[in-house]
Structures are given as C-alpha cells and as structure tokens.
C-alpha cells in the first residue's frame, strides 16, 4: 500500500488541481523548444544546403579577374594534402530558403571530373542520365528537386527566373537525379564555358584525406583573419564550411540574443505564474496542512511533500512537453518547414537544454513561496475555523 501522504497519491487523485499547472508547463516547454529549434534551424539549414563544403572547397577569383591568378593556383598546388584541383565553370540556380530565394552553384565540369566529384560525395545516379556535353542540362541531387518541387525533365533555370545572379539565358533542364543527402548540381564544362562567358572560372580542390580539408582551408585563408593565410584575399576568396558558419552565426548573433531574452522572459513569467498557481493551490490546501501539522507531521515533512509533488509534476510535464515537441516539430519540419527551405532538427539537444530551466525555476519558485506560507501556518487557527 502506498503511504497516504505520498506525492503520487495527491497527484493521481487531484487531476483538476494538477492538470492545469501540468498543461501550462507542457505548453511552455513546447514554446521554448520550438523557438530554440527554429532559431537553430537556420544554422542547420546552411550546414545542410552547403554540406558539399565538407568534401571540397571553392576558390573564387575576386571581381577584377575572370579566373584564379596563376600565383594563387601555384600556392594551392604546393599543399601536400590536396588531392586534386579542378577548374570549373559555374552558374547559379535558385533554391528556396527561409530568407527567400538564394543562388545555388551548378558546377560545369568534364565527365571525368564530374564522376570524380560524385564519387567523393558518394552520389549515384538513380533516375535519368548525366548531362550531355554542351547541352543546357543538369544532374541534381534529390533534395534540390524536392526543394524546387521539380521532376525529371523540368526546367530548373532559365531567362524568366527571378532573383539576383541566378538564372540562365537558355532554359536548363534536369536530365538526371542523384541519390545523395548532399546538395549538388552539375552540368557540362562546355555548356558553362559557352553560355556564361562573363562568369568567373573558379577552382575547386579536394584533399587526399577528407578530414584534412578544414586544416588546409584554415592554412590558406583562416576564418576571421583572412590576411594571415597563404592565399591573398585581394586576389581570391575561399568558400569553406567554417567561413560559411562563421558568417551565418555572426549575422544571426543578434537574433540568438533576442531568442535568449525571449526564452528567459517566458521562463520567468511561467515560473511566476506557476508560483502564483502553487500559492492558490496551497491556500486551498491550508486546512489539509493545518490538520496534518496538528497531528504531528513536521513542517519539514510537509515541505518535502510539496517539493516532491512539484518536482514530480514538473518533471512529468517537462517530459510530456518534450515528447510532444518532438512529435509536433517532426511534423512541422516535414510538412511545413522543409518545403520552405528550412531544416529543423526536432530532436535538437540544444533546444531541449533551453527548456531545462522551466522545471527548475518552477520548483524553486514554488518551494520559496510555499515555505514562506508554511512557516506562518497556524494549525490552531485552521482547526478552530469552524
């Protein structure tokens, strides 16, 4: 038999008093988890869309030149970790993201270079064929097709495209689909060379050991200290994963700060509200505690009873809120955000870390307010209130 004063006895037999507070906590956890996940999803989106930067690095000539200067290329060739340097023509197609349409690079390469790069990212052709030489055709990975809601044979870029530097003077069709999580689009070098005459040629390099790429990148053009690297920032720019993330995080730092303030405010308000709810419930339970105190149950034991009731309630509500958040965010990620080019991790540990202060704050707040009232509790006045 469970002890009558067990917190579980109270919690299971008083749903009308327990559920409203539990519901508030569940909603609060979902709110914080959703805000934190969505904020973090921008970072994840950049890492997902530009994940190819884990496998190769672009070296782009600065505006004054049409290709990477020879002295800069020579520096690349001297790096022992580099496996291969490929010169490619490029053009851009639009992709949908949460901040609007952004250009995504299409690499124009020879068939041999294309096969090498696709092998590097472990992408295989699952539908259609590879682009023919000189023709306005591309092969793209599945996530790009899903993002643009296109299918094999559709036009992915053309003269009617809206948006910045993306587009093509001739309609470019999707002729092949690659099975890969990594976003990549490839065309023939002959097509890019004859069609995009004014677009600079870039260099693309891989390392013998893929994990060396970050080391080489940092040596060539360190993040935040461009001038300290081997390459000249006046002549070239380097598109690396570290660079991209640093730029995104820097530009989003204000938003992250706002989010932290919002989270802290929500947690404070919820803790305050829950503390007030605890007080109301405690007021309703004063006869109970007065009688128990008169019967000889110490204030410390009564306090522990309330603490455990609060801890159990907040932990269960937090767990339910977290599970609910995972389900709802998974649904939203798949059905709402993905189509809008936002990648959301429904099980982002960072987001759930932000919800941990909720049960802690509520428990502390409830403990303090109830302890103050319990200290002033006069059992006789309860018993004599007839």
């Amino acid at each position, binding site marked *: 038999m469970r002890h009558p004063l067990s917190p579980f006895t109270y919690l299971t037999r008083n749903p009308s008093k327990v559920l409203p507070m539990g519901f508030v906590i569940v909603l609060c956890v979902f709110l914080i988890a959703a805000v934190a996940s969505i904020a973090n999803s921008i970072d994840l989106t950049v890492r997902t869309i530009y994940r190819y930067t884990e496998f190769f690095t672009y070296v782009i000539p600065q505006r004054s030149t049409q290709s990477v200067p020879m002295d800069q290329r020579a520096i690349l060739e001297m790096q022992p970790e580099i496996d291969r340097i490929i010169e490619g023509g490029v053009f851009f197609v639009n992709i949908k993201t949460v901040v609007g349409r952004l250009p995504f690079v299409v690499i124009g390469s020879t068939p041999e270079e294309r096969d090498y790069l696709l092998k590097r990212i472990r992408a295989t052709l699952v539908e259609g064929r590879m682009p023919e030489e000189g023709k306005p055709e591309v092969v793209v990975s599945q996530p790009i097709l899903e993002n643009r809601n296109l299918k094999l044979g559709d036009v992915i870029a053309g003269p009617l495209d809206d948006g910045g530097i993306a587009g093509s003077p001739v309609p470019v069709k999707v002729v092949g689909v690659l099975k890969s999580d990594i976003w990549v689009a490839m065309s023939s070098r002959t097509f890019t060379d004859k069609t995009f005459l004014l677009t600079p040629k870039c260099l693309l390099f891989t390392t013998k050991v893929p994990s060396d790429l970050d080391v080489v990148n940092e040596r060539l053009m360190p993040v935040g200290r461009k001038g300290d690297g081997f390459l000249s920032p006046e002549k070239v720019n380097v598109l690396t994963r570290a660079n991209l993330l640093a730029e995104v995080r820097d530009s989003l730092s204000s938003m992250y700060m706002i989010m932290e303030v919002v989270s802290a405010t929500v947690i404070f308000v919820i803790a305050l509200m829950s503390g007030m709810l605890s007080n109301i419930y405690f007021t309703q339970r004063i006869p109970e505690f007065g*009688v128990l105190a008169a019967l*000889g*149950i110490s*204030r410390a034991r009564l306090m522990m009873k309330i603490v455990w009731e609060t801890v159990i309630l907040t932990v269960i509500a937090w767990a339910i809120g977290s599970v609910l958040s995972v389900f709802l965010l998974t649904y939203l990620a798949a059905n709402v955000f993905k189509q809008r080019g936002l990648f959301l991790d429904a099980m982002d540990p960072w987001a759930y870390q932000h919800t941990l202060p909720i049960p802690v704050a509520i428990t502390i707040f409830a403990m303090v307010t109830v302890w103050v009232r319990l200290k002033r509790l006069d059992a006789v006045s309860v*018993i004599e209130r*007839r």
Partner: protein
Amino acid sequence: MLSCNDICLDYVEATRVTHALKGVSLDFSPNKLHGIMGPSGSGKSSLLYILCGLKSPTAGNVALDGTSITNMSDAACARLRSQKFGFVFQQPFLLNYLTALENILVGINPDQLSASVQKAESLLSYLGLDGMGDKYPSMLSGGERQRVAVARALIGNPDIVFADEPTAALDKDNGYKVMSALADWAVDHTVIVVTHDADMLKGADVIHHLIGGCLVDDQPSNVR
C-alpha cells in the same frame, strides 16, 4: 503524567488585552477520562491546545512526565504530538482525496505503514465502520466521519488523546458512540475531552470546570 502549572493566556488586540486563561494549574492522572467543561469563551479549547503543545501560553508551564513541553522547538513538539498524542477535533478534518482507511493512516510513519494497516481495519471494525475503509469522506455520514477521525487519533497508540468538542457536530446517538470509544480508550490511557455538553461527560472520571479562564473546581464523575 501530564500537568500544567499556572497557565495564563492573553490575547492582545490593538490596545485591548483579553485574559483567556488566568493561572490554570491541573494534573491529568493517567488511565482516566478527564473532562473540561465550561461555557463558550471560558478558555477550555485554548487550554487544550496549550496542553498538547499546539499553542504557547503567555505564562506558565506544561510538563509531560516531568519534562516541560512549553519551550520545545516546533520540530520536537511535532514529534511529541506524532508519537505520544492523538487528536479528535470538533470537525473530523478528513482529507477528501483519501479513503477512510488512508485517513486513519495519514500520521503513521512510512516504515510502519504495512504493520498499521491491519490495526486500522480493526479500529474501523471496533468503531462500527466495517467495510467502510475504501470509502471516501464524501460517501460517509457526519457520525461515520467523526468515528474515522477517532480511529485516526487512536492508530498510533497514543498515551494521551485530546478531544476538542468531538460530539458538537453530531446527533446524540453518534455523540455517545464517539464518547464510548474514548471512554474505552481511557481504561489504560489518558483522554482529555473538552465539551460544553454535560451529557457527553457522564462517563468521565474527572471533570474540570472553567469559567472566565479560571478553574472553578474538580468534580469526580459518579457514573464510572
């Protein structure tokens, strides 16, 4: 033995002082049913709460077996009430989310719970509440609720049971049932009952009369 010596209790309200008890001294000999009688406002309930350590007197001392309980810490006093005293109040004050059986066991230490369940069932049976253990207070009559409260007072085998107007909210029949249970307990324990109803103290061994906060006289009962 419980005794009190020169107990005074003053209530101060703004500039007015009310002397609720004026130097009450009493010895409560063991194994007796003690009645404290008096009209409303005579200070009998206040005296009871001072005797059991729930209230502090303005002056005077209460001692249990020679040890003063008047200046005990809250925690020590709570321990004393839990281990040595039992209480029956005017209202049963049962917790409405607990069954009758659970209400009886509410003050029992968790490590003694299993051993006390059978005793609680015996008490229910002894108080004429067979089969009512799983009923919630809302399903019981006023008399049944008060008998559950009596069982709650007796479950810990207390040396002294304090009862404050235990029959005030009951009809005569239920009142006698409650008093009969308390009188039985007083055979080998001490029971102190506060009431204004002389009928209910017919079985008392000793009756103390309080009027205006002063002890008038002690009258042995002629019934028991």
